[in-house]
């Protein structure tokens, strides 16, 4: 083992940075997926189930076929199926999309646990990382700068999504469906179809987010893998005002926040641990309170959403 110079207090920002990247990547994918879905006028609370299902299927496929990237693809596919199910259920009249989301959350999680039992023990090949710290002598810095390719996919996807939403006709259709279904229909858009596609893509991304959890960090499948990241992503999207780039940054923020606890303990700060855990939720709640208003919609809210109204 080469140069392991203890970093002491420097360990904290380093841990937060690498933790932000590591723990934040699933948030990036799920929040971008949810952002798109919500932009088109639907809330998909079922992404928690999609995330878990994606994690399980990625791990299972990787174990069975030996190819982690195939696992990622299958995870995305399973997310698409769940997304399609959500879209179909919600397209029926009088069906409430939040309720469907909760139903899918239960179903997706249950299905993942059910099918995933045989995969808890075995080890599946994980996703490789790109080494960005080759220049450093410190093995810790090198380890911290090991970044997975999916992070970069997310990094590129966020501005791409933003550009597409505001500069393409497809993006216009999505936003129209989300802001006012009536107006969209009068423009000739088929609202249900737009929402279907958006929800399916959203599910695809959420599935990939799950694959990251089981194939890279923590890199293992078991039933405690998700601690509500899928649900948090919904709050995160609101926190980020439905802007894909802000979603990306907020994901890093939430990811870093979850890494802070262990990092602080490693330099000796141990009290108030649980209150720390509550910080991201309190922050989001405060932000929502500060920016919502009874009369006007929160700036950036898709009109059809029923949120912030």
């Amino acid at each position, binding site marked *: *083992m080469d140069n*392991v*110079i*203890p*970093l*002491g207090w420097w*360990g904290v920002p*380093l*841990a937060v940075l*690498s*933790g932000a990247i*590591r*723990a934040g990547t699933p948030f990036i994918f799920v929040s971008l997926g949810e952002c798109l879905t919500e932009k088109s006028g639907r809330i998909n609370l079922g992404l928690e189930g999609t995330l878990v299902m994606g994690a399980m299927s990625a791990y299972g496929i990787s174990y069975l076929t030996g190819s982690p990237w195939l696992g990622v693809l299958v995870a995305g596919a399973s997310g698409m199926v769940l997304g399609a199910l959500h879209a179909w259920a919600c397209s029926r009249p009088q069906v409430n999309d939040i309720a469907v989301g909760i139903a899918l959350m239960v179903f997706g999680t249950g299905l993942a646990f059910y099918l995933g*039992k*045989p995969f*808890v*023990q075995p*080890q599946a090949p994980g996703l490789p990382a790109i080494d960005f710290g080759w220049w450093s002598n410190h*093995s*810790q810095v090198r*380890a*911290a700068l090991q970044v997975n390719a999916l992070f970069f996919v997310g990094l590129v996807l966020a501005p791409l999504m933003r550009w597409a939403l505001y500069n393409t006709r497809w993006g216009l259709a999505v936003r129209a469906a989300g802001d006012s279904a009536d107006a969209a229909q009068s423009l000739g858009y088929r609202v249900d179809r737009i929402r279907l596609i958006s929800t399916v893509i959203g599910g695809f991304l959420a599935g990939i987010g799950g694959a990251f*959890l089981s194939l890279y*960090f*923590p*890199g*293992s499948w*078991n*039933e*405690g*893998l998700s*601690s509500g990241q899928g649900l948090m992503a919904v709050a995160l999207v609101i926190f980020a005002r439905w802007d894909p780039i802000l979603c990306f940054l907020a994901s890093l923020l939430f990811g870093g926040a*979850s*890494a802070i*606890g*262990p*990092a602080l*303990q*490693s*330099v*000796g700060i*141990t*009290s*108030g*641990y*649980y209150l720390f*855990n509550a910080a991201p939720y309190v922050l989001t709640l405060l932000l929502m309170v500060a920016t919502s208003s009874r009369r006007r919609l929160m700036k950036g809210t898709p009109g059809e959403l029923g949120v912030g109204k």
Partner: protein
Amino acid sequence: MTYRYKSSRRSFIRAATAGAAGVLAYNWGVLNANAANEVIVGALYVGPKTDYGWNQAHAEGVATLKKAGIKVVEEERVPETIQVAKSMESMIKLDKVNLIFATSFGYWDQMLKTAEKFPNVQFLHAAPTVWKEGMPKNAGSYNGYIDEAQYISGIVAGHASKTGKLGFVGAKPYPASLRNINSFTLGARAVNPKATTQVIFTGDWVLPVKEAEAVNSLADQGIDVVTCHVDSPKVVVETAEKRGIFSCGYHMNQSVLAPKGYLTGAEWNWEKVYADYVQWLREGKQWPHLVRGGLKERIVRNSPYGNAVSEKARKQADAVRNKFITGDFVIYKGPIKDNTGKTVIAAGESHGQTDVGLESMNWLVDGVIGSTSG
């Protein structure tokens, strides 16, 4: 125009009554078969049986009973609420279970309540809970002094570590964990008196993301051997392997997960305890309400040494293990100071493993970086 309903209230009542009658008839028809006088085991786990950790260790112990031809029913992921009592009752009433292993700490209260209701069934609790006079006679607890095995792990870790810095990922700072941490550290210090153990508590028993983060932070601090006390050490061991540091396992053998870095591990040997209980039950013997033991009683054991363990380490570890087995070794022998400088065990004092006082340990030994609060 007047309206009439296509269906009438009367027809609905008729339909409902017919349905109810059908249900009652089915109930009357269900009879229970009477089973012969044999030992039927019921096991309850708080998590999944395949977690490579606490639950799997128990499941594997129970599996040896199955192999011996004993009928076993198992339930996993039983939450620590009233559901425990109901599950136990269901096992007793429907599966004719007469020996129950309740393998999670939080099952104690419900277990006692159920024990009072079914005096002919034996209830055993896998935790350092203490049976007292006045509690139902058909209840008891069993536990192992796994910290002896952690001591051995500590010796091996002390030899293997180049930086002298060890790490421990714990869930909550409760006595059994603190005891493990202390034994591990004392073992390492027997090799390297300057060794330190950094502790990180994740806050709960199954938090894979936090466990992985903890190992990363520990590795960032220059620690090169980690061990843990969480329900499923799989993540800790795998992450350690990814970071290229050594690991010592816990609960059961995780060497498959870390072929390069796995040194040894502190494992349970529940097979022995379960076989004993079945034996006692079959022979109708009075069994102890408190079953405890360590390496000597073969309730705990160490994993086989990994490739990275040096000859010297093996020799020393084996020597100490033999001393445990002959009963000559005491880990908690004074003078011992805790990590705030206070003397917790005075010079000349010696606490053997069976000392009940050790089961409410609330201090961390000198050399441990971390705190018992939070």
